[in-house]
């Protein structure tokens, strides 16, 4: 009985999210539509409360509960805190958009919170099945969210594509997991690692690994599992795009750490090559495809693919330095991508999506301040110092170099120049072209303020990168030792 009590305490943040998600869903039935802002406030409060409990219950020691199925280490706590922050920012930026389009409903917040719960389970899952359940919870919420705007045929199409390909990927992951289970007779991540250590490499094990890596790659959107990314990014309403494109990458990273590092590290030599190939292909294909895009969301989708390539460049090093650098890259990437979509959401208004690159034309003459913020975001994505994006690229490149991937680093560097081209293109439109549209900004003040702080943070973290670098490196090191 005592044991059980402890177990639930370790899950306190998850329980808060779950309970509040259900409460919001119920409350939505009983309040008037003009009072729905309460739901928004409650959701933000939920994130705050979860962050509070995550922070409060944090200990440096690694804790297990529910018979070793649920792990609570520093890494999971840090990732969860980042997720709360990301989700909270997304709530701020999307509120106006949802209100304008009659999508401001309780289901949205409940669904996002359930999705977050799924991600938190992925982060803390120490058992193949638990990780899979977390992933499915997240995926189902995202499928539903993409189709949230029922009247929008493009969104429905995107949801369909996302669902079909996502279900396929989940199937592959599960298939791989079943093979691992068959070979190791366990679903527990540490037991799997021990068992693989004691046996010879068998084809079934490698097949299992291939399917697991494919499942992970799909979640990241790495080449050759990237087909869904551009279509889903472009087709979804922008709030859903930012939901798909940002925080879930953190969960995918955690899943990679749990499965590949903690579970399948004895097979590192095998998955290193797979990640290497995907990294190189993602960087090349992502960058080259992004150049020709005219739709900003689609361009950001391809740029995401190339960012994923860089993230894998760090992970393929298969050592603590590499995974720490990927972690840093993902944290900055999540910040950058939410900020870039924040600008799109800021500029969009009723009946106008601001999602073509040309919609940014002459932004410097209309709103010099937001043009400046977008400038920071774009240079950060391109990896130009003194923005934080540079350090993300730098840490990943040095980790890959240390692990001996010389030509991959040189190739990645050359591709970064290609990448700079399409980010510059945006800056060019904002600063050098005349505005095509003169309507005033209608975004609420809190959104403008938070978006400003958020974008400036990209510059601030670039001037003092040690803050985030230290958190990422430290949390990974003490969790993996």
């Amino acid at each position, binding site marked *: 009985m005592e044991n059980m009590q402890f177990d639930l305490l370790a899950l306190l943040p998850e329980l808060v999210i779950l309970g509040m998600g259900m409460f919001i869903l119920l409350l939505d039935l009983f309040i008037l539509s003009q009072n729905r802002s309460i739901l928004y406030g409650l959701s933000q409060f939920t994130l705050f409360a979860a962050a509070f409990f995550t922070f409060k219950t944090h200990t440096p020691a690694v804790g297990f509960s529910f018979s070793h199925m649920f792990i609570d280490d520093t890494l999971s706590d840090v990732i969860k805190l980042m997720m709360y922050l990301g989700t909270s920012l997304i709530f701020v930026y999307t509120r106006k958009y949802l209100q304008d389009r009659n999508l401001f409903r309780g289901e949205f917040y409940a669904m996002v919170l359930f999705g977050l719960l799924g991600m938190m389970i992925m982060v803390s899952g120490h058992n193949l099945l638990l990780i899979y359940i977390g992933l499915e919870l997240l995926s189902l919420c995202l499928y539903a969210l993409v189709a949230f705007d029922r009247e929008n045929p493009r969104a429905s199409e995107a949801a369909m594509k996302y669902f079909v390909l996502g279900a396929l990927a989940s199937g592959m992951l599960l298939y791989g997991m079943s093979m691992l289970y068959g070979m190791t007779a366990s679903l527990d991540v540490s037991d799997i690692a021990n068992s693989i250590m004691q046996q010879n490499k068998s084809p079934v094990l490698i097949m299992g690994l291939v399917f697991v890596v494919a499942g992970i790659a799909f979640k990241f959107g790495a080449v050759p599992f990237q087909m869904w990314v551009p279509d889903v990014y472009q087709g979804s309403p922008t709030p859903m795009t930012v939901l798909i494109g940002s925080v879930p990458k953190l969960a995918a990273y955690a899943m990679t750490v749990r499965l590949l590092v903690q579970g399948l590290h004895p097979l590192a030599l095998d998955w290193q090559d797979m990640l290497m190939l995907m990294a190189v292909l993602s960087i090349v294909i992502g960058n080259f495809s992004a150049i020709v895009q005219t739709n900003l969301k689609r361009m950001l989708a391809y740029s995401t693919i190339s960012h994923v390539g860089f993230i894998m460049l760090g992970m393929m090093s298969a050592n603590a330095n590499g995974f720490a650098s990927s972690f840093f890259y993902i944290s900055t990437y999540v910040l950058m991508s939410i900020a870039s979509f924040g600008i799109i959401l800021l500029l969009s208004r009723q009946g106008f999506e601001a999602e073509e690159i040309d919609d940014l034309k002459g932004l410097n003459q209309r709103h010099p301040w937001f043009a400046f913020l977008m400038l920071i975001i774009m240079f950060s994505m391109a990896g130009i110092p003194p923005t934080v994006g540079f350090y993300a690229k730098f840490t990943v*490149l040095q980790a890959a170099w*240390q692990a001996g991937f010389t030509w991959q680093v040189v190739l990645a560097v050359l591709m970064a*120049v290609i990448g700079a*081209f399409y980010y*510059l293109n945006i800056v060019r439109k904002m*600063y050098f072209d005349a505005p095509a549209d003169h309507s005033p900004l209608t975004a609420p003040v809190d959104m403008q303020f938070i978006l400003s702080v958020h974008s400036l943070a990209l510059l601030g973290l670039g001037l003092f*990168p040690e803050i985030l670098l230290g958190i990422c490196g430290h949390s990974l090191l003490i969790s993996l030792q």
Partner: protein
Amino acid sequence: MMQADLTSISWLSLAIWLPVLSGILVLLLGGDHKATLTRWLALAGSLASFLVTVPLYTLYDVQDGFFQFEELLPWIPAFNIHYHLGIDGFSLPLVLLTSFTTVIVVLAGWEVITKHVAQYMAAFLIMSGIMIGVFTALDAMLYYVFWEAMLIPMFLVIGIWGGPNRVYATVKFFLYTLLGSLLMLVAFIYLYHQTGSFELADYYLLPLSMQAQIYIFIAFFMAFAVKIPMWPVHTWLPDAHVEAPTGGSVVLAAIALKLGGYSFLRFAMPIAPDASHYFSAAMVALSLIAVVYIALVALVQKDMKKLIAYSSISHMGFVTLGFFMFSQLALEGAVMQMISHGFISSAMFLCVGVLYDRVHSREISAYGGVVNKMPVFAAFAVLFAMANSGLPGTSGFVGEFMVILAAVKFNFWVAFFAATTLIFGAAYTLWMTKRVFFGDVANHHVAELLDLNKREFLILGILAILVIGFGVYPQPITEVMQATSIEFLKHMAISKLPVTGY
């Protein structure tokens, strides 16, 4: 006592951050509707930034060939990166040149820039701080951050205030430079994993195999050769220059090109001395191609700015030539040439700017007989043209002469080709001067020209004094770099190849 107080101030940090902060201040307080306030704020900021660099010169110990005014703070402990600043005899004149040029640029854009005044002034102030950062950083990563950060304001300056083809030019400028810089970053990553730090001092002492040195040298070469620019990676420069506003051209020519030259002295050569010797013949050859071939290209230009841009490339050929002959005379001549070119090319671009502001054309054929309408301006322009072609008594002569003198000792044919610049330089500069300034008044645009106003007179006057002053008495510049160049050559003479056994 007074001395001790003055040396305890972090002059270098001030020199970097004062212009950056004043740039931010201009952005925050200024705007198009209060343009006058913006201009005065920018001028005050640039003057203050210049004044804080003056003590660097007065307090500098010319006997000491190593780094002075050092500041060392931990910055990114995760990668052992430090905020490490310091100057020696090579960087000191360049720092002063930078802060001085910024004042000139602010004055030059005074009435000319009417669109986004605050952003224009702020961009130059911030750029000035960043460039001083490049010249003073002693930590490779700090240096790299400054080096790359400079691209952002320059990209905007050319793109927003430039000429008709500005977008093409600025994107080309950015991507060319970025490609070179990223290869340099790979070299830094390699060096970091060899030494575990980004300290320049550690890199200087690191023994490296010949193969490693060659790769490192090539990576640095890609970054610096683009910036200088050396033939054949120079093609971004004429485009960028032609399309940039006058201030942008001045900063590009006077300072940005020097970043490349300086970086050869600070990074490529001391880190890979054996590779530098190995490649010296090739570098000398490339420099001579720049000197001779680019001078011929300059000769046929129809656009004044393009002509000066090509002449800059040709003059920078002298700088790299001087570096790779490994003698004190050549080295000091090359650094002298960098400083003097900073003044002369600024002056030349400002002269074109004066004409362009009035007639809105940079074509040589659009002018003729300007002297009849603008006698004072013509006097200045002819003086700077003389300096550009290396007339004795102007600062342009000193550096070129020192390099040629050193070349005679090095190899007769090198000296021969280098010396042709005195002919070609005179040919293209004076021919342009003749076509623009002399003869009869060519058209009604020229007939309506008004002579220099007080602001223009002031700018060109200061530059004229400096050009003649350093031409007659170059001692203030040469004496600060003497000790440093001796130390530099000592370092370059020692092989870094690992000592192999029997």
